[in-house]
């Protein structure tokens, strides 16, 4: 509990910053910023976009997870890795690639499409992890009672994956609220765009902070609403014997047509932006490919993202466990606090850490640990939701039995709980890793001076208008995501046998 509380407090630092910045000059300015008709309209637009993208991502994420984990889809192991990778594509890269091919692309529909293509893996990864570990005995029971495979899926499996799908959609929703890349390039007037614009226009940090606070209030509303829908269902099996390897669902004559789903989605989300970048590379006569430098940036990216993933996943363990096991109000508050950083625009979180480190941890400012910490604040919910999902699957009775047999809590954790939640921790770490790969605002502001990642290379190439130069780092960015996703699917197989 204390551990979880500490993690939550760290995650709330940006909130403290926003309060300091927003409150610094009397309430009339706050009112002026808040009670603009435009503010209300933009908030409504942002929430609408977030809802639409979350819904579509839930459908796509669950469908792809089912197809690639439970069905005899041709090449499903490869697809399982590929369909997770769009998460590593920065939204501004995808949006830019689309607009450069189709100028005038703007507004709700293109923004919706781009964001959905990039964020459904938030649902796909945790749902696939749960599907991998759900006891097929439950589904078998339903089948033996006369349900067809689809009905059994709907009545049994869908219920098992519901918590994972719901938290995944929540992550999508928060991510969409915080995204700036796609909305700015596709000119969808959203709330985050106004926050960024107020940094860029008046150079006054106050209105941006006030708007950030408002975004926060709505995030809390969404979090509370989501918590209500969770209900009190239990998801772990009763007494669990040896688990049988589930037999894949035969798609029959739909086996090959079903392939269209991952092909189209991966094509649009991965192949289209990367292909566009490669075309630029081919067209450009002066593209300068500095392999050594890109290699170093690749190394730095993997180190920073790897540390970010490890630290974040570790921090998520106490929070996720607490949320799954305790029904107390405080546990709920602690878990929800972890989600706040994800809904705030990256620039806000980054500036808040600039503010605190310069004042209170000056020697660490612009050193790697602070950047890793920033990744943690930004992406903690990705790992928490994953840990939470797998902790729900683990029957607490096992811990209780072990405790009653005289094991110390730390030993119980090591021998019983940890192996049970390991898939969730792994999935969470992978999600965080994929998301860290592309992180930009915090990396630019908080990374050591001269520190380069693949994402900053992509950014500086597009900033220079040398789009061809962005191709290689962008490709590597996606390639770096292959290993963790592949490891995840491998692990799923070995524990299942």
């Amino acid at each position: 509990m204390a551990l979880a509380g500490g993690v939550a407090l760290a995650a709330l630092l940006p909130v403290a910053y926003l309060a300091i910045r927003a409150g610094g000059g009397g309430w009339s300015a706050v009112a002026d910023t808040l009670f603009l008709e435009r503010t209300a309209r933009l908030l409504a637009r942002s929430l609408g976009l977030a809802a639409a993208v979350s819904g579509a991502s839930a459908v796509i994420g669950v469908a792809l997870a089912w197809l690639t984990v439970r069905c005899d889809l041709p090449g499903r192991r490869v697809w399982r890795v590929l369909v997770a990778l769009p998460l590593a594509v920065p939204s501004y890269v995808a949006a830019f690639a689309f607009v450069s091919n189709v100028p005038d692309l703007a507004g709700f529909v293109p923004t919706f499409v781009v964001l959905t293509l990039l964020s459904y893996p938030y649902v796909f990864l945790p749902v696939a992890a749960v599907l991998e570990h759900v006891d097929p005995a439950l589904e078998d029971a339903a089948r033996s009672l006369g349900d067809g495979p689809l009905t059994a899926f709907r009545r049994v499996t869908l219920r098992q994956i519901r918590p994972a799908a719901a938290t995944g959609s929540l992550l999508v929703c928060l991510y969409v609220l915080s995204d700036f890349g796609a909305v700015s390039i596709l000119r969808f007037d959203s709330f985050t765009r106004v926050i960024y614009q107020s940094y860029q226009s008046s150079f006054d940090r106050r209105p941006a902070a006030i708007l950030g606070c408002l975004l926060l209030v709505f995030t809390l509303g969404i979090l509370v609403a989501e918590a209500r829908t969770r209900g009190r269902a239990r998801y772990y099996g009763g007494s669990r014997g040896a688990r049988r390897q589930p037999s894949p669902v035969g798609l029959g004559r739909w086996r090959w047509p079903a392939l269209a789903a991952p092909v189209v989605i991966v094509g649009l989300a991965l192949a289209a932006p990367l292909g566009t970048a490669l075309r630029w590379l081919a067209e450009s006569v002066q593209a300068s490919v500095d392999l050594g430098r890109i290699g170093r940036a690749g190394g730095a990216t993997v180190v920073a993202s790897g540390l970010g993933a490890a630290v974040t996943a570790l921090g998520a363990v106490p929070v996720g466990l607490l949320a799954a096991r305790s029904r107390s109000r405080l546990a709920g508050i602690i878990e929800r606090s972890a989600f706040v950083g994800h809904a705030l625009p990256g620039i806000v979180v980054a500036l808040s850490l600039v503010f605190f480190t310069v004042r209170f941890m000056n020697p660490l400012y612009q050193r790697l640990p602070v950047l890793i910490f920033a990744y943690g604040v930004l992406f903690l919910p990705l790992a928490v939701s994953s840990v939470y999902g797998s902790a729900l699957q683990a029957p607490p009775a096992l811990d209780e039995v072990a405790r009653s047999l005289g094991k110390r809590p730390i030993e119980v954790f090591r021998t019983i709980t940890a192996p049970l939640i390991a898939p969730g921790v792994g999935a969470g770490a992978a999600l965080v890793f994929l998301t860290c790969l592309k992180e930009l605002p915090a990396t630019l502001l908080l990374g050591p001076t001269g520190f380069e990642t693949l994402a900053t290379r992509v950014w500086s190439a597009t900033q220079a208008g040398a789009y061809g130069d962005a191709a290689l780092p962008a490709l590597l960015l996606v390639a770096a995501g292959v290993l963790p996703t592949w490891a995840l699917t491998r692990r799923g197989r070995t524990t299942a046998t």
Partner: protein
Amino acid sequence: MRRRLAGVALPLLLLAATLVACSDGADLTLYSGRAEFQVKPILEQFEKATGLKVSARYGASAELAAQIAEEGSGSRADVFWAQDAGALGSVDKLGLFGPVPQDVVSVVDRKYRAPADNWTGVSGRARVVVYDPRKVPAAELPASVFDLTQPKWKGRIAIAPTNGSFQSFVTAMLIAEGEPRTRSWLQGIKANDPRNYPSNDLIVKAANDGQVDLGLVNHYYLFQLQSEIGREKTVARNHYTAGTDPGALVNVAGVGILKSSKKQADAARFVEYLLSEPAQRHFAEVNFEYPLRPGVPTAAGLPPLQAGQGPPINLGDLADLDHTLDLLRSTGLL
């Protein structure tokens, strides 16, 4: 197996992390809102000429300005090199810049530096109309951006409303011509159904590819396109509107020295180098920008800056974009 993997991977990551973190030891720290390809060669020349080592941190000008503001007197930056005068003006407003020594800035025209010399421009860029000569004959070219609201330009204009230089240009119009005229110009442009692009360079590309007839951009994107795809494939041309037309605004990229810097003398040397002949030649020849040191020639094909070119405004005032954004929004352009 898993534990053993973690046991090896974590220490390795930590080791790598300390290696990454230990690459410091610079004499000067530069926060650069300019792109690396524009800055790096100059830094290398400066390091060679002076033996001082500069470490640069790149970002967008506005975000770096916000970062400097957040750092306050604890800033790590010695020098801030911004893409536009507005970002410099905002840091200056917070009182975080100290004056650049007189003997360093005096080569620059007063018009292109801060009133109290707390920052100075180092290279200039002009707003131009890029056009496709296959669609727009020379006789038809507008004498002023105000002509672009005529109905004959309907569906033929490209703009980049989200881009900082477009917004600076509208701000300049607002300061020089007043709100009523700016508002009616924006309404006129809106009525002409402009095509919206995410960046200047894509407008120039589109004009070159025959997708738009003309667009409002900075002058150097055409030259960049030329060196990117070759001179013979570059059909589009720049048109310079006349005199004090807001369409002829000259904005600058410039530098300021942080008051909190403990390396004032070296910082001043750096600014001095940026204004020196070799650096100014580099800006002119490689970036196709306007040199701000008198006597340094512009790139081939680029007409030199005129004495009274652009609207008569104080460039630092371009910092206040609020009013501009309100106007752009209320006219439906943003």
